[in-house]
């Protein structure tokens, strides 16, 4: 790595760490939204970018993580750090079930995508009828004092959430980097590229596809836990909504599928564009709900048409030279 890259990383690190102190409340909430997208986008990227399985129902895992940990906290007073494990366990079980059904019965391509969509929808309707989690009226977490930091119960000022998410996003980046360079990563990429050829080389594809689903579901569920305690209210209609699943997909696709930094770059671009649009609309005095999503849709359209590998690969080639799988 040359001096420029190191310097850039250093500057970004300083900025990132001191952000809560130097920006406004509003800007910090945008930063949190960006980090969330980056985190959840990386989680999705494991399944699609690495192992090649297209899930369009990832909101399922977010929702399960959120609801399980949120309900355990509200009804039984269980701290989020414990409830997290329960949420992850539930999400992983669901993911494993979907994965096993799909891979065992050779459900691929559009059928797999539809299966994931249907699973999320199915769960949404299920939670609409689940009294323990509030049904359609929603689940509300006890909102404690926001000035004091109660890290154990994940309650505190926005800055606390910011750092927690920053840590999560970076830890996931580290995990993905490590995975990609290991045997698991090689095998995932091989399966993504050409599954029959991978099998002929001795790769037990079912096992590794399941691993991708499970890792992806687990990470996504953690994001869900975080979201529950940040937003403090959950509604099946919103949490499991298909629009959410598509949002999760946007950052990695726009940034760069299968790359390490793609989801992060994508998250930054998306949030900037989205907030920029909202700000512009406000300035113009227009009230157009849904404009942000239209812009997202257009961005996705443009990316898919002209930059199918995402924004990050061409930029990284310019900065670091060819053939660096970042």
């Amino acid at each position: 790595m040359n001096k420029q890259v190191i310097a850039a990383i250093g500057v970004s690190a300083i900025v990132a760490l001191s952000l809560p102190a130097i920006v406004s409340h509003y800007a910090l909430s945008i930063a949190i939204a960006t980090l969330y997208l980056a985190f959840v986008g990386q989680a999705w990227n494991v399944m699609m970018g690495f192992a090649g399985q297209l899930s369009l129902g990832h909101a399922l895992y977010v929702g399960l993580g959120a609801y399980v940990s949120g309900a355990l906290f509200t009804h039984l007073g269980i701290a989020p750090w414990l409830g997290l494990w329960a949420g992850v366990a539930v999400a992983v079980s669901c993911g494993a079930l979907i994965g096993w059904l799909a891979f065992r019965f050779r459900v691929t391509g559009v059928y797999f995508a539809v299966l994931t969509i249907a699973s999320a929808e199915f769960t949404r309707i299920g939670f609409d009828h689940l009294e323990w989690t509030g049904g359609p009226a929603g689940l509300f977490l006890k909102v404690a004092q926001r000035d004091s930091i109660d890290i154990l119960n994940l309650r505190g000022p926005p800055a606390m959430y910011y750092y927690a998410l920053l840590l999560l996003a970076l830890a996931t980046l580290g995990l993905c980097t490590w995975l990609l360079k290991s045997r698991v990563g090689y095998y995932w990429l091989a399966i993504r590229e050409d599954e029959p050829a991978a099998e002929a080389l001795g790769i037990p594809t079912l096992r590794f596809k399941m691993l991708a689903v499970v890792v992806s579901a687990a990470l996504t569920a953690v994001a869900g836990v975080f979201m529950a305690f940040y937003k403090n209210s959950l509604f099946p209609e919103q949490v499991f909504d298909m629009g959410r699943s598509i949002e999760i997909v946007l950052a990695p696709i726009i940034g760069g599928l299968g790359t390490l930094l793609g989801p992060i770059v994508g998250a930054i671009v998306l949030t900037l564009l989205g907030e920029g649009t909202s700000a512009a609309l406000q300035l113009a005095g227009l009230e157009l709900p849904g404009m942000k999503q239209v812009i997202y849709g257009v961005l996705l359209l443009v990316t898919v048409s002209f930059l199918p590998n995402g924004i990050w690969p061409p930029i990284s080639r310019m900065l670091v030279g060819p053939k660096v799988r970042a």
Partner: protein
Amino acid sequence: MPAADLVVSVVVAGLLTGLVYGLMALGLSVIFGVMRVVNFAHGELMTLAMYATVFACSAFSLDPFVVLVPVALGFFGLGYVLQATVINRFITKPEHVQFLLLLALATILVNAQLMAFGPDARGVQTDYQLDAIELGPLLIDTVRLYAAAAAIVASGLVIAFFRFTLVGKAIRGCADNHLGAKVIGLPVERLYALTFGLGASCVAVAGTLLVLIVEVTPGAGPAYTLLGFVIVIVGGLGSIAGALVGGVLIGMSEGVAGLFVSPSAKSMVSFALLILVLLLRPAGLLGKTA
């Protein structure tokens, strides 16, 4: 335990609505069968057509059945242009890229409709909206009956098109063998655009008919897309008859589930069916096993 004639009425209502669903799914199946394109924006096109119908009817004081033809033609054009300009470039690209393209279109359509029409539900008003026909103990909604009849006619026209016209046969040729069709000089791109236009007009007609039965909201788009997929997968992706059979099956099961379980749980039955089909007979009830 609901009375037997209530159950039968509900089943019949479901059957009739299911025929309209079938027409919608038909469009989806045709597009996939010929071009291998999975139209993730299908439901969103339908809600667009529903809105078009609502506004045309209220603006010009017309009946939906009158508006049907211009809407069908309009959406044919829309579909044709969409395929020729945007989608065509993606035919040879990997599957997930196609999905994302159409998802992007879907997102744009849904939110554009939200911006333009607001989140409130809209419907049409006709004189016969609340009429019903009595067939012995059964009560059948007139609108459902008319809509189902129109759906049957439309589906019949599509089937006849593919079976008997030269263009239809040419399209089937493309579907069977893309390269071969090109080699013998068929204008494949134009035929694809025609096919997409046809699929779009199917879904538009379905929308026009459906808005007689239910009201439209922008958020219904994705739900209809998913419904379309469930029907098509259950019935058999690429099979015209399968789309209709699937539609009827889903329509009836939704009605029955709504009666016996709860109205909001009715799609759960459809999903259960979907999962069963995916696991046991992925080609669908009437699909060809590859």
